[in-house]
């Protein structure tokens, strides 16, 4: 007879290993942060000592190259060409040929310009560069040798993991509540190195992982997850690549985007500003409500843009679907293919073509107007014209999708309903109103929800057709966010906040809008 404690210990260790992987990742992050901080402190301290010793005793410390740099001598022909001499361990010499001379020269220039500084070089070498004013107009500068970061404490981690596994197994052997206590203690033991690495946040996170694991055991969640992983391992194996891709390409940028909304970007430096970006956007930035840079104006344009497009997409798409579904219609396949073409062509190409057609007096549209003796339209000279140009282009792109959806739905309507209605004397309009439309709604509802989200964020058409002309007035939220990021001073944080607000608006629309539509269908 087999020992019944075997499977219990196995399960316990299984849960411990899963939680320990997460805890180990957190502990490693804490270690790396602590190691980098220690290295920076060490190197900057070395740089400070090197400068101090050179000034005091005219000697260098090991692992650092310090120099006292003389004031620059400017070229008489080109004043910005300045040459410097320096005193270091090898005596007085021009800064020109030594391996560190460029760094020391630039550091001296920087001290003259902005005062003392000390920092690690951004090349990942762990070298520190520092400079400060010296006696008179001299400048003391130093560059250290590369720093060697502390190695990963593998033995410590192995020891802690062993201790944790032993605690977890011991708890399992005692049984019942002690098993969960053992799990908690085993996983939480990984918090000990995190505490030693001065990271209370990481230690707390590991403790929370330990608590969550113990609770999952208590309610049987750990077993259920493990069982389903084993049972569905083939399906999960197939899903894993897509899941990983979603994580890297969708989830990670999404989360980073939300976080960036709380920061301000300035010359490559990010500063936490809390809700300031959101406040600036929602307050309109102090601009009048009819100013094209005011968020509420742009939101109004975006909503109008979405509504106009959806009305046109649906009405044209359904009308064409009705025509194509007629029995008397010949060459349906050809027409269907031709009408789907706009959808099949990449939308930015279509947008560029339409942009060309709307151009001034040489565009195809105005040439057509000329041909029928109508006057030109300055397509990007007024809001109405620019907005119309965008809507026309996007309608061209959008109706085929609705037509395809409607065609599919029309195929499912039983012919008998129309025959019965005809027998009862129903008019064509009554047949459309009471038979066709109710049968189209279940298919069109989700299509409209999806289409409205696409249209709300249709960057390509607005950017490439009107480009916001005239005067930024035809921008929609997503194109305005782009402008804040790339044309108005690298305000990436503000643009990220815009993106978050757009997401929230669409989330609300998805939740409540689809509910409203579903309610209508149910009714």
């Amino acid at each position, binding site marked *: 007879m087999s020992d019944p404690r075997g499977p219990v210990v196995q399960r316990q260790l299984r849960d411990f290993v899963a939680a320990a992987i997460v805890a180990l990742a957190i502990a490693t992050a804490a270690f790396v942060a602590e190691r980098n901080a220690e290295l920076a402190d060490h190197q900057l301290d070395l740089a400070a000592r090197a400068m101090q010793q050179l000034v005091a005793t005219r000697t260098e410390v090991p692992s650092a190259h310090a120099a006292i740099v003389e004031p620059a001598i400017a*070229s008489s*022909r*080109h*004043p*910005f*060409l*300045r040459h410097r001499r320096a005193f270091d361990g090898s005596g007085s010499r021009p*800064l*020109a040929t030594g391996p560190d*001379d*460029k760094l020391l*020269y*630039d550091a001296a*220039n920087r001290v003259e*310009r902005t005062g003392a500084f000390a920092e690690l070089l*951004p*090349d*990942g070498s762990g070298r520190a560069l520092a400079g400060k004013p010296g006696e008179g107009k001299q400048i003391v500068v130093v560059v250290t040798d590369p720093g060697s970061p502390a190695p990963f404490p593998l033995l410590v981690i192995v020891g802690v993991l062993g201790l944790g596994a032993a605690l977890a197994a011991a708890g399992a052997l005692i049984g019942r509540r002690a098993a969960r206590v053992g799990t908690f203690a085993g996983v939480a033991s990984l918090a000990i190195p995190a505490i030693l690495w001065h990271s209370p946040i990481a230690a707390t996170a590991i403790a929370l992982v330990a608590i969550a694991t113990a609770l999952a055991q208590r309610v049987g969640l750990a077993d259920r997850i493990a069982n389903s992983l084993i049972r569905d391992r083939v399906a999960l194996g197939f899903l894993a690549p897509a899941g990983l891709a979603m994580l890297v390409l969708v989830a990670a940028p999404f989360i980073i985007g939300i976080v960036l909304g709380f920061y301000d970007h*300035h*010359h*490559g430096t990010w500063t936490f500003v809390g809700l300031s970006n959101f406040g600036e956007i929602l307050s309109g930035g102090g601009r009048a409500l009819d100013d094209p*840079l005011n968020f509420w104006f742009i939101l109004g344009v975006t909503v109008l843009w979405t509504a106009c497009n959806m009305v046109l997409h649906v009405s044209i798409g359904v009308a064409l679907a009705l025509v194509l579904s007629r029995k008397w219609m010949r060459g349906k396949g050809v027409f269907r293919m031709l009408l789907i073409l706009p959808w099949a062509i990449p939308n930015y190409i279509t947008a560029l073509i339409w942009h060309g057609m709307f*151009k*001034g*007096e*040489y565009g195809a549209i105005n040439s057509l107007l000329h041909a029928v003796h109508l006057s030109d339209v*300055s397509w*990007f*000279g*007024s809001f109405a014209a620019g907005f119309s140009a965008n809507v026309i282009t996007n309608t061209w792109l959008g109706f085929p999708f609705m037509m395809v959806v409607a065609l599919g739905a029309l195929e499912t309507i039983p012919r008998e309903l129309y025959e019965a209605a005809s027998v009862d004397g129903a008019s064509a309009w009554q047949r459309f109103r009471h038979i066709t439309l109710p049968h189209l709604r279940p298919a069109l509802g989700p299509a409209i929800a999806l289409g409205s989200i696409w249209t709300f964020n249709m960057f390509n058409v607005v950017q490439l057709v009107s480009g*916001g*002309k*005239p*005067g*930024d007035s035809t921008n929609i939220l997503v194109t305005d966010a782009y*402008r804040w990021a*790339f*044309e*108005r*001073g*690298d*305000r990436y944080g503000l643009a990220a906040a815009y993106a978050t607000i757009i997401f929230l608006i669409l989330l609300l629309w998805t939740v409540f809008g689809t509910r409203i539509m579903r309610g209508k269908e149910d009714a």
Partner: protein
Amino acid sequence: MKLWLILALAFAACNEPRGVVLWHAYSDQERTALEANAAAWNSTHPDTPLTLVFVPHDAFADKLSSAIPRGNGPDLFIYPQDRIGDWADAGVIEPLEFWVDDARADRFAEDALGAMTYRDSLWGLPFAQKTLALYYRTDLVAQPPNTTDELLALAPAMRARHGFALAYANVDLYGHSPWLHGFGGRVMDDAGKLAIATPEAAAAMTFARELVTTGAVPDDAQDPLVASLFNEGRAATAMAGPYFAANIADGVPWKVAPLPIISATGKPAAPFASTEGVLMSARAANKATAFAVMDFLTQDRQAKVRALRGHQIVPNAVLGTDPELVEDKVISAFTRQLAHVVPMPKGSGMRVVWTPYRTALGDVLSGRAEPYQRLVKLEGEIAGYAERK
């Protein structure tokens, strides 16, 4: 076994000597000339090959601003001076004066070298100069117009043949700059502060609007339309840069001349002059080698190749008297134009001027706004963007 082989190959690829990577946005003849320069370097420096990477101009600056601070991007790149202040302040580019002596500096025209300086440092080696001049069709205009009145006098005859006296990219600040400076306006003052809303700048905008309303120039023209109108004989003249020569169709009779004098002020139309420099990334892998490449590319011999094959106005002082270049009709006309130009501002903050100015020009040219009021609004808007700089 296969896996080990793949890993070994991947590892070997990672350790491949990198050489020097240079990003550029050149096309057509300019690109061919630059490739000739690179081939010359590579033939003599096989251990540190120069790799040219074409990056479309629209995305160029943003890619650099994003890539370099994270340790990516090129070792070298070619860009005009208007972003130098911004990139120098952000630590994106490397100061060069350490490597440059008087003899090297003397290689370049003083104004071109000055365009590469910022905060008493040198940030690039001058590579090419760009400005605008007047291309004219000799079958439509016997002599180039000396004044704007003479230019406008071409309008009635051109209108009769459904054409224009002049075609130029009138909604861009760069295209508008000859009028702006010719009327006495500016974008920034000598201290680098915004000086947009002035009566002179308003007069320049008014003039540009009159050109459109009188039908002397087409509305909202961009470079492709300008080339098309010029080639079809529907524009008697075109205001464009040296690159425009490559767009002129075979068989079109043309010449280039300096821009006319503004009749209202008596001052010459003075376009922006930009100096393209070869700049070094602050995160270049091997800076000494990268500088050697910069030095090589800007030598007189390589510059002459670019001038002759790429129609570039090269800033090498000695080439100003080179007989082969003096005979080149494009180069000689643009060299004369360079006597009447305004250097493009390079201070931090210039980069946020272009797009709002384009929007404002569009508003005024289409009659949606009055010049002075729109300029006041524009200056406020740009100040709002630039104050974080």
